[in-house]
């Protein structure tokens, strides 16, 4: 009774999560690459594949033993993945490379039970030898069809086993090896190649979406499974000059915001939503800018809703029913319409740009952009290209983007190429001067911004070398390393290092 109970419990523990119950395929070696079989949890001990002329038994490849000089069961072998043995016979083809070199050739069959308590990584229990066949010289050099009955002890078992086939001998050399082919073992495949080739186990998946709870960012939500940071940096610092198409004082603090975005995907890797978070750090100018994100290349119809954005302070922006901005070719999402409103209680033209203070904390804005996950409309993370920008001083036609990011449909095309701007719609270059200087900079991570009217090179002296070297030198020019920052010209808000 105790044994029966143990058997039932064990079989429950090994419930296949894929439920495929696939028959273990015949090992033909025809892949020509043992590592492909190893990735599927077959194992080879000193046995290789060969396609040398005259050696393969069937097809182009066969399994070749080492020089058979050791009759030990562990000298040369092929081992199956964990499997549930069926009943009937194990069959294989055998021949020897040469008839006379050496005295003995032997094929030994064993089975190995699973042992969870085994301290080794393979969890193999004690090997049980159950059959063998021996040959004396002269050995067969033509194919022999061999057959071995699966022992009753493991036939039709609900527990996992491995079958090991040893190819050994005495008195051999490299020209007298054993060759086997077409190893067929009745039973079902039961290994998990993604888990060190251990037996398949029932995964915990509370929401039933097919993603194991320990890999699921939303284990109780079947519509969500993964979080992916886009772009791939976590939070970043966006710093804008807002006099475009003119250049300004290059303190890059006219509008500074912490910015981050996370794509939430489902078990089919389709984007369910994008969460955008912003936290304005400074406003070093008199303009009252808006902040928006364009999803380059994505039609507004792909979005089903926008939540959390702040759009009620102005009528400059018009919206579609799904919350995206209207009259745009690509989906544009307004994050907030007035940056100054993000600092309740702050006065004056400059906010957080005077080293003497006072310093203000802005309202954190978290926007959720929901996507259509219907099969014909669903997109993947790699299709997301977020293009953050400001709309300058409530003038909808004036936008400032990171260099070479495309303007939205509502940007006034007439302004491009005027004053210091050298944008070219033909070349696809935007928001750069003739000297290739940008109007906005994005840095991965949160960094301190400039004191008002201080050129950014005075705070970050290595920035010039980085740009001059096309990014090859001082690629971490913004880091807090010795000589990289002039701290008295930088504003360190709480939490920024």
């Amino acid at each position, binding site marked *: 009774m105790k044994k029966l109970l143990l058997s039932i419990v064990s079989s429950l523990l090994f419930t296949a999560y*894929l439920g*495929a119950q*696939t028959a*273990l395929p015949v090992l033909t070696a025809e892949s020509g690459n043992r*590592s*492909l079989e*190893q*990735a*599927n949890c077959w194992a080879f001990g*000193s046995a*290789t594949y060969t396609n040398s002329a005259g050696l393969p038994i069937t097809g182009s490849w066969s399994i070749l033993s080492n020089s058979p000089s050791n009759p030990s069961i562990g000298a040369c072998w092929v081992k199956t*993945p964990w499997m549930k043995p069926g009943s009937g016979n194990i069959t294989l083809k055998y021949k020897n490379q040469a008839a006379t070199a050496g005295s003995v050739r032997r094929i030994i069959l064993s089975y190995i039970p699973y042992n969870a308590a085994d301290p080794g990584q393979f969890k193999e229990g004690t090997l049980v030898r159950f059959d063998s066949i021996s040959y004396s010289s002269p050995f067969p050099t033509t194919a022999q069809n061999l057959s071995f009955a699966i022992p009753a002890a493991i036939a039709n078992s609900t527990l996992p086993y491995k079958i090991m086939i040893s190819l050994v001998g005495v008195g051999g050399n490299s020209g007298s090896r054993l060759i086997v082919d077409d190893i067929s073992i009745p039973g079902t*495949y039961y290994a*998990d*190649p*993604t*888990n*060190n080739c251990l037996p398949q186990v029932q995964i915990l998946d509370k929401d039933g979406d*097919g*993603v*194991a709870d320990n*890999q699921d*960012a939303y284990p109780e939500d079947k519509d969500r499974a*993964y*979080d*992916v*940071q886009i*772009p*791939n*940096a*976590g939070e970043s610092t966006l710093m804008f000059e807002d006099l475009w198409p003119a250049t300004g004082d*290059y303190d890059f603090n006219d509008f500074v915001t912490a910015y981050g975005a996370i794509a939430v*995907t489902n078990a089919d*890797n389709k984007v369910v939503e994008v969460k955008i978070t912003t936290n304005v750090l400074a406003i070093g100018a008199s303009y009252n800018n808006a902040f928006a994100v364009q999803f380059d290349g994505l039609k507004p119809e792909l979005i089903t809703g926008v939540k959390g954005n702040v759009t009620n302070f102005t009528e400059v922006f018009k919206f579609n029913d799904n919350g995206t901005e209207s009259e745009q070719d690509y989906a544009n999402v307004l994050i907030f319409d007035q940056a100054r409103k993000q600092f309740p209680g702050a006065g004056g033209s400059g906010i957080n740009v005077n080293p003497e203070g006072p310093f203000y904390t802005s309202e954190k804005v978290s926007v959720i952009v929901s996507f259509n996950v219907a099969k014909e409309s669903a997109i993947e*993370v790699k299709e997301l290209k977020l293009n953050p920008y400001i709309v300058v001083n409530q003038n909808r036609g004036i936008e400032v983007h990171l*260099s*070479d990011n495309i303007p939205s449909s509502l940007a006034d095309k007439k302004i491009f190429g005027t004053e210091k701007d050298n944008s070219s719609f033909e070349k696809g270059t935007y928001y750069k001067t003739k*000297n*290739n*200087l*940008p109007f906005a*900079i*994005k*840095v*991965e*991570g949160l960094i301190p911004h400039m004191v008002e009217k201080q*050129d*950014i*090179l005075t705070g970050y002296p290595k*920035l*010039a*070398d980085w*740009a*001059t*070297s*096309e*990014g*090859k*030198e001082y*690629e971490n020019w913004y880091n807090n390393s010795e000589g990289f920052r002039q701290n008295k010209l930088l504003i360190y808000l709480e939490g920024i290092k």
Partner: protein
Amino acid sequence: MKKLLIVSMFALVGLTSCKKQFNEHQELPKNVSSAKKFSEIKTSENFDWKTTNEVTFKYNGIPTIEPIKTTLSIVSEDGKVVLYSGTQLMSSNFETKLAIPTNMKNIVVKYGAVTKSFSTSLPIIAFDILPTLVD
């Protein structure tokens, strides 16, 4: 003694002037900017001003006995930044572009129990779960 002191001072001033003159006319090492203001920076028109490097990531699928899928994830070395995470069929190929911060020198790729670390200095990172063969 007084004369010697005066002569020495003149000589020192002369040497300092020469040194200053030399520094001002010395050619700057390549890739070191002389710009004191942002507006003086001279850079190639191809420079993109990004603090990320674009890396192509490729998962090379391999034939499997039955459909096997689990989570493929790409994370920073400290695990805090998830560059990619998604369900991946072991037998299917997958390719995506990653914008990796320049200060992220290595990334870690995980597929089930298989974990490999890669340098981000490579333009293409190819990952598979094939074991290394030992004959």
